[in-house]
């Protein structure tokens, strides 16, 4: 059943996302043109310079807008098919609520991931178009062994380890953004009226609670790290628990929001 849910989620969202990626492609071409013009500008045409700046600015705005639009659309689609009148169809399908929820979450996460990857690709293309391929050659000339050694010395983590950590953090961040909105919607639908207002209120309460917990954990971890530093321990013994703690904390938030949304949808669905 999960396969079927994914298939139809794809069908229902692919058209809109296709348009989003078409806009991204157009924005990239515009950005390339703008950046290339700026790079090769001899100062003869002021108009061309202004036009290039406008194009490049539009590109920056488009990239940010596309990422925000993807997130908003995914949340809107989830709301439409779950808690609005279309939810009547979704929740009368002979499918377990967890399968429906997983299907929607996986597809939304997938689209956000694709948007992120395509945005990075767009920036890469822009750099190639704007400043040529020299920077790629320069990348190969970097002394990676030295960089890795320096990072190990200061952060207690190798360069590949640091990149892996950043990727994990980014993926967990995407997932937690989605689940944060989902759990707020789930709480909001429990109420008879003013559901949007209660969703926003739930979001505020959850956000503040998460910030308080994170601050406490950071202070404790920071204090332990500082003590370790004073004792002259290796950077690794200071930073590793900090990095690990941030991932564990993200996983706890994600787990809590996932099961919160699932339990509310399963046991307290309220399509009045």
């Amino acid at each position, binding site marked *: 059943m999960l396969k*079927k849910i994914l*298939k*139809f989620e794809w*069908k*229902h969202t692919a058209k809109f996302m296709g348009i989003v990626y078409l806009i991204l492609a157009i924005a990239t071409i515009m950005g390339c043109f703008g950046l290339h013009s700026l790079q090769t500008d001899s100062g003869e045409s002021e108009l061309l310079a202004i036009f290039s700046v406008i194009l490049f600015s539009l590109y920056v705005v488009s990239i940010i807008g596309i990422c925000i639009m993807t997130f908003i659309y995914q949340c809107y689609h989830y709301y439409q*098919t779950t808690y609005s*009148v*279309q*939810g*009547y*169809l979704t*929740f*009368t*399908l*002979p*499918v*377990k609520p967890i399968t429906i929820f997983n299907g929607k979450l996986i597809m939304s996460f997938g689209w956000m991931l694709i948007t992120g990857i395509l945005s990075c690709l767009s920036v890469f293309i822009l750099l190639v178009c704007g400043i040529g391929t020299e920077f790629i050659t320069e990348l190969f000339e970097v002394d990676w062994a030295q960089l890795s050694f320096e990072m190990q010395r200061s952060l207690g983590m190798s360069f590949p380890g640091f990149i892996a950590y950043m990727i994990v953090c980014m993926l967990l961040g995407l997932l937690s953004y989605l689940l944060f909105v989902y759990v707020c919607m789930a709480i909001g639908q429990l109420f*008879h009226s003013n559901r949007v207002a209660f969703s926003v209120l739930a979001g505020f309460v959850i956000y503040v609670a998460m910030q308080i917990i994170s601050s406490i954990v950071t202070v404790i971890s920071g204090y332990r790290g500082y003590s370790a530093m004073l004792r002259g321990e290796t950077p690794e013994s200071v930073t590793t628990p900090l990095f690990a703690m941030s991932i564990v904390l993200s996983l706890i938030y994600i787990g809590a929001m996932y099961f919160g949304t699932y339990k509310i949808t399963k*046991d*307290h*669905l*309220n*399509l*009045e």
Partner: protein
Amino acid sequence: MSALVSCKDLTKAYGKKIAVDHVSFEIEGGHIIGLLGPNGSGKTTLIKMLNGLLRPTSGQLLVHDQPIGVESKKVISYLPDQTYLNMNQKVEEVLQYFAAFYEDFDVSRAYHMLSDLQIDPKSRLKSMSKGTKEKVQLILVMSRKADLYVLDEPIAGVDPAARDYILRTILSNYDPAASILISTHLISDIENILDQVLFLQNGHLVLDKSVDDIRVQEGKSIDALFREVFKC
């Protein structure tokens, strides 16, 4: 033999307001039941609980002796009182969706009914009139070989000619072993097809009787009895 639907002391409260209050009844297979009552009597709330869209506050609701869940959804075909489809979709896409999820969905029957009503399967729902959308929804619901069809106000938004077609569609497309639960205000239009009626008033079940018994014992039509019971 166990009842198709068994409802015992079912209650649903929205905060302090009780929409359905300790309602108990049973539905056997092969019956057409009218769920009748004025606005706000709890009909739609009861139907939504039967379809798993609302959770009861207390009481028991079983379908084939099973609580509401995946198994009950396999045997209940539900028509809500409003348009619940994605308006950007084409009719044929909705048919594919139903065929994928409901094992009992008969695609050829659906296409046959669409052709009867001259509805183009390639047309988008958003381009259709309200009445045509309702007909499409009814076609989707009646194209399933379900044990129970739950129809919430199936004839409310359409003209009298379309009403006749809808009632004919309902009667000619359901398996006689299956049951139909119809909620409506338009009693005179459907009373000839009913076997049993459930009268709801302020969330209470005030009458659960066979139509024959009502006619014999009360000597009046369901419409006349309804007007008498719910006199303002």
